[in-house]
């Protein structure tokens, strides 16, 4: 396996609000030094609370937002600062599926226009008949009917709309799919349909997927590896099973412990984190998690801990190696 995507020390800042009249805007570090690889054919998930920077990582990797630091290599080529034109051939090889199946489809466009939109941009020369054929092919790929081609988004259910979004993302046959919370807005029963579809397409088309989500149960099902994000940084990266059975970062431990388990016979002590995620405008010094960490020591305030590889492929950014963390899953 070779890495399809290599991200190194990625940074993205936004201008925050002005702290007072005539004072300069504060800098909001939405993504603050993130590094990871995705191998070809792999599903890597990015999890973390809202505002932790997951969407910003996805958008920056796609170059929908310009990075303020770090490098992005796609298929071996550095694309970090390519011009719009130079970027075009790469754009079609990576596509995005959005979170909200209701807001992300233009209600005035037909299915043919929506799903065929990327063709209009990247293959403007093809004729109407060919375009129609390609749209029909994409529809059947996601389990919709060719006869749906003239319909409008409001005629579809949430799950079907999400399929439309996936069909649109797949019509150019991309290598990398970035799916930003693609099932979060769906009912559990429909969520399962879409998760199954994504995994099936991955196998059939050899897709590589960056899956962004805050639903740990779904992530546990779909991913090969998981990267946990907190306040713009990765705090743990591990193969899925290892992360669930033997988390190594206190934040991952708390996150797993907070997931309600659908079995009323299970009663467990849960770690209830106090307070909210600190504002990224004013993050804590040192370890970003220390204001909510029950294992924090004075030394945690000194510098942000770097990711260290603790076992093959299992990385954590925490200075304490002397703590035994619990898992809701237990050891396999």
């Amino acid at each position, binding site marked *: 396996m070779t890495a399809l995507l290599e991200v190194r020390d990625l940074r993205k800042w936004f201008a925050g609000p002005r702290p007072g009249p005539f004072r300069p805007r504060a800098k909001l570090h939405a993504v603050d030094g993130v590094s990871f690889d995705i191998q070809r054919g792999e599903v890597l998930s990015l999890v973390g609370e809202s505002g932790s920077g997951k969407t910003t990582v996805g958008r920056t990797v796609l170059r929908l937002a310009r990075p303020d630091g770090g490098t992005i290599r796609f298929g071996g080529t550095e694309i970090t600062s390519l011009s719009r034109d130079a970027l075009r051939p790469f754009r079609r090889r990576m596509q995005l599926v959005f979170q909200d199946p209701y807001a992300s489809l233009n209600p005035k466009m037909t299915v043919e226009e929506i799903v065929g939109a990327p063709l209009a941009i990247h293959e403007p020369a093809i004729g109407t008949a060919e375009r129609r054929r390609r749209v029909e092919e994409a529809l059947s790929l996601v389990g919709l009917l060719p006869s749906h081609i003239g319909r409008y988004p409001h005629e579809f259910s949430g799950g079907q709309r999400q399929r439309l979004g996936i069909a649109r993302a797949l019509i150019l046959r991309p290598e990398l799919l970035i799916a930003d919370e693609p099932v979060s807005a769906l009912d*559990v029963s429909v969520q*399962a349909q879409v998760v199954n579809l994504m995994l099936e397409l991955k196998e059939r088309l050899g897709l590589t997927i960056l899956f962004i989500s805050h639903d740990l*149960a779904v*992530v546990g099902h*779909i991913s090969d590896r998981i990267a946990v994000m907190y306040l713009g940084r990765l705090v743990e990266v591990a193969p899925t*099973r290892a992360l669930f059975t033997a988390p190594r970062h206190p934040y991952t431990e708390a996150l797993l412990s907070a997931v*309600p*388990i659908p079995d009323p016979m299970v009663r467990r002590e849960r770690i209830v984190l106090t307070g909210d995620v600190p504002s990224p405008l004013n993050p804590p010094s040192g370890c970003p998690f220390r204001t909510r960490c029950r294992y924090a020591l004075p030394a945690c305030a000194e510098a942000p801990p770097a990711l260290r590889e603790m076992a093959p492929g299992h990385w954590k950014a925490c200075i304490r190696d002397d703590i035994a963390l619990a898992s*809701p899953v237990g050891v*396999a």
Partner: protein
Amino acid sequence: MMPEAVTDRGALPAALAEDEILAVRDLSIAFQTPAGRLAAVQDVSFTLRRGETLALVGESGSGKSVTSLGILRLTPRAPFCRITGQVLLRGRDGRVRDLVALPEEAMREVRGRDAAMVFQEPMTSLNPVHRVGEQVAEAIRFHEGLGRRAALTKAAELLELVGIPDPRRRLASYPHELSGGMRQRVMIAMALSCEPQLLIADEPTTALDVTIQAQILDLLRRLQERTRMAVIFITHNLGVVAEIADRVMVMYAGRVVEQAPVRPLFGAPLMPYTRGLLRSVPRLDLAGLGREKLAAIPGTVPDPLDPPPGCSFAPRCDHVEPGRCDAALPGLDLARPEHRVRCVRWAELAGGVA
């Protein structure tokens, strides 16, 4: 007849058992839409005891929110929306009223004093231009007749109770200055300001992160232990249901399709829809152990304006038996003590025939 007389009917001892706070009987709610009459909720019946939590689960559009809005008469007025049936609520004064028949004025007093509601998106129910403190205090003053200062003091106590740090200072914040979790706490504080008998929480944690959800569930549990209020909790997260519910009511296409105490509902569900729902959740303990297909339920909910004949789950059901399932609407059978199911084949299916 005068409204008072209607109200008194609910006071009959037969109407509400000693420890019951709420009894909903044959509640139906229909909207008049440009495309015709939409029966959003049909023949819903249940009771709720003091200190008990009932979870309402079901597919989007199944009628969970409309049921709860209907209970508090927060649905649009007639003729746009019609409510029939009975909603018997025991007030703080011990009297039982039928909310369906109550005049609007009396209903306003019931809301907040006897029953209160927390919504999914707290931003839409908090007024963005007023400070949090004023809004909580206003809710208190309306019902308790306290002065402004006293109400603000009580508001601070309430914010403290729901775990908002530095409550005195927070009273001066505007809603947009609070995080989602804090806004939801403020909503809960407002709902609890008058110590209602009944709290209806419509997806109060759905928009929140798991760690914040855990905080809110914890909070609700502690408050309920203290006040013994009855809670209707709407959610489609089955993990949350398992954690907080005493009893569960599953809705599908506007009707109750299964109703049971939480353990039998998860341990021995009888309705194929409930089973499908439980199976479609990815299991945390199997995370990373290969990717078996999730047991999705194929298809989608029926169009409420054009429901199928007979069982409304039939178009998606693995066990459908044409001629039987689509012949007539299955009744809500009492299958076991306290366990009701709406499926003509439940007995065969429970015996493992399928």
